[in-house]
């Protein structure tokens, strides 16, 4: 995985315990490296399992799960998009199947995928397409690091603080909440 994404600007890369989390690599990317990373995975014959958005305090963590028909393992690419402007480039041109997964993510979480060829509501009635049912209300959001496993860190960009455990346990809720509602 390390070699596969060499040269791309990454934020965070860690090896995970597959027996517990079901994935063996997790990579946080800046939105700009998403399409190139997807292209590399496509060239390495990976296929897209699904796209899953997670509504956390810091924003929507959009996870792309990949798998391979011959090799074991499940690398996952992750992009964090802010609550107020959830927008990502579409990888539908790389993985044909991503089109529907992206539309589904839009239906549930309201994440916009720029460049999706047919970006209309898929699962939800177009009349109530803006209800975004899986968005959580700010109070019930959790922090990313409370849910996701840090794993064995291979690389971490200094500016990336999502997974670093914060020293003061207090102030966790009130501080994050303000940021989220903004």
């Amino acid at each position: 995985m390390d070699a596969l994404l060499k040269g791309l600007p990454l934020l965070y890369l860690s090896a995970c315990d597959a027996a517990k989390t079901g994935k063996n690599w997790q990579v946080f990317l800046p939105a700009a490296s998403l399409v190139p990373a997807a292209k590399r995975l496509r060239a390495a014959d990976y296929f897209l399992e699904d796209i899953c958005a997670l509504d956390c305090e810091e924003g929507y963590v959009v996870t792309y799960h990949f798998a391979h028909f011959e090799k074991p393992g499940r690398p996952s690419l992750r992009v964090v998009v802010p609550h107020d402007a959830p927008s990502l480039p579409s990888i539908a041109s790389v993985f044909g199947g991503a089109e529907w997964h992206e539309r589904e993510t839009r239906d549930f979480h309201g994440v916009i995928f720029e460049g999706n060829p047919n970006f209309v509501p898929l699962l939800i009635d177009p009349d109530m397409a803006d209800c975004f049912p899986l968005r959580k209300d700010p109070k019930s959001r959790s922090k990313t690091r409370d849910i996701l496993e840090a794993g064995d860190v291979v690389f971490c960009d200094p500016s990336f603080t999502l997974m670093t455990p914060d020293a003061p346990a207090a102030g966790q809720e009130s501080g994050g909440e303000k940021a989220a509602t903004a």
Partner: protein
Amino acid sequence: MAAQNLVAQKPDVIVADPLLNIGPAQQIMDICRSMSLWPMTFGLACCAIEMMAVGMARWDIARFGAEVFRPSPRQSDLMIVAGTVSKKMAPAVVRLYEQMPAPRYVIAMGNCAISGGPFKFKGQYGMVEGVDTLIPVDVYVPGCPPRPEGLLEGLFKLQEKITGKRFWPNPPLNGPYEEGM
């Protein structure tokens, strides 16, 4: 669709009282109607499989003349709402009902069609809680999904409703039950 009223409209042509009401003729027609309820090929969810099972060899709804599943609503008499009606599906259900020629009957099969069933919860956003909020329902068959016997019993109830008489014996209360295999 939001602007459009989803609930089935009253038909433009109200069925007028017959000029000459011949009781026996009416009764014969009722019996014919009840013995020839052609359902529409219209499955929504899990219950649709049990609806299919009713048409299959083991239960064979054909015995009661109701195996002629018509794909076109124009030719069917009975709409078996077999499954969950979502808000997205609701306009289609209403339209299908309106496309059926009178006299038409509706069986709400399964808890979802009756009340939203297991999918009715606080904060639900896509479910019609009971198909009877959209179209008039004649018989409710509860279950999740109802067993095929249940649907057959629903059919008998509908026949009873049409003719005012139950044609088939009541099921025994304590068996005998069929041995499988």
